[in-house]
């Protein structure tokens, strides 16, 4: 599958992404996806949110927040397809699609956060 020096790196990124997602995603999804839309808790105003996101530390946080878990998904999903659906003959294509999507997502996130107003 992956070459020898690449495998530990991919696993490291997968683990980092999984840890970030495990620690941070539930609270963020609860707030942004349920509590705020349903009015259980008062969301920050768009202006306040803009100011918050504009801060360099928040930009960095969000970049890591979005990118690492994407690579976690890429690595994990790739193996799920390979083992679960036994798509061994497509192993190279699956790898390219999965990691490629993650790279694309990270690039878009990086660009968006870099050029965020403020």
């Amino acid at each position, binding site marked *: 599958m992956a070459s020898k020096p690449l495998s*530990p790196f991919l696993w*490291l990124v997968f683990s980092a992404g999984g840890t970030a997602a495990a620690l941070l995603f539930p609270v963020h999804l609860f707030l942004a996806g349920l509590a705020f839309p349903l009015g259980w808790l008062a969301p920050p105003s768009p202006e306040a949110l803009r100011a918050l996101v504009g801060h360099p530390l928040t930009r960095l946080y969000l970049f890591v927040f979005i990118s690492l878990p994407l690579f976690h998904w890429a690595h994990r999903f790739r193996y799920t397809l390979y*083992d679960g659906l036994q798509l061994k003959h497509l192993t190279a294509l699956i790898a390219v699609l999965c990691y490629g999507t993650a790279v694309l997502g990270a690039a878009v996130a990086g660009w968006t956060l870099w050029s965020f107003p403020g």
Partner: protein
Amino acid sequence: MGDTVTLSVARYRPEQEAEPVFQDYEVPLRRDWVVLDALNHVKDRLDGSLAFRWSCRMGVCGSCGMMVNGEPRLTCAAFLSDHLPGPIRVEPLRFFPVIRDLVVDITSFLGKLKKVKPWIVRKEEKPISEGEYRQTPDQLDAYKQFSMCINCMLCYSACPIYGLEPSFIGPAAIALAQRYNRDSRDQGSRERLEVLSEHDGIWQCTFVGECSQVCPKNVDPAGAIQQYKLASATRWLSLLLPWGER
């Protein structure tokens, strides 16, 4: 509890059938009998043609592994009374090629075992005059759990990754590699690293965890594998970073 229980045993005689068939035997239901006792009863009294492996009958040799009601078990440790009501299904260890009846081909596993060099590897042997290799209890503790492996291969039968990819080096081989990697007397980590980081090495494992669930000796091969992944990854990092050791 009645007097007898039905054993539904997979038979495969390549000279007469293309696929395994089940054959039922009525065996005495004794409170202290294990599946191995029942199989030996079949062989001794009912059907001498049944082929199966066994040896110590006390859970230390690793010979009698089979599928009992779909779970990989040591038949010398699987009580008939725990599998009631019958029929109790006995099949050869899953994911291995079947030679005959309940006997599977374990050559591939033996090859994998040899590949990981499950012995103390030294750059230089200490001369006898210098005395023994000494080891503290803590140093023993670092690898003792992994040394309990009896090569019964139940973990291979539980591992879906091995089922899907028979070339996967597998739980027991990796656990045994770790047993020696973590032994303070050993200096062979580098050599084993080559084998373990290959295409069919540790990176095929997706931590299903079933191997540790079925291990009769609590070796925890899944733990051994994850620890090795982490060690491998940190080693990679240390090589990458300029101040790391080479």
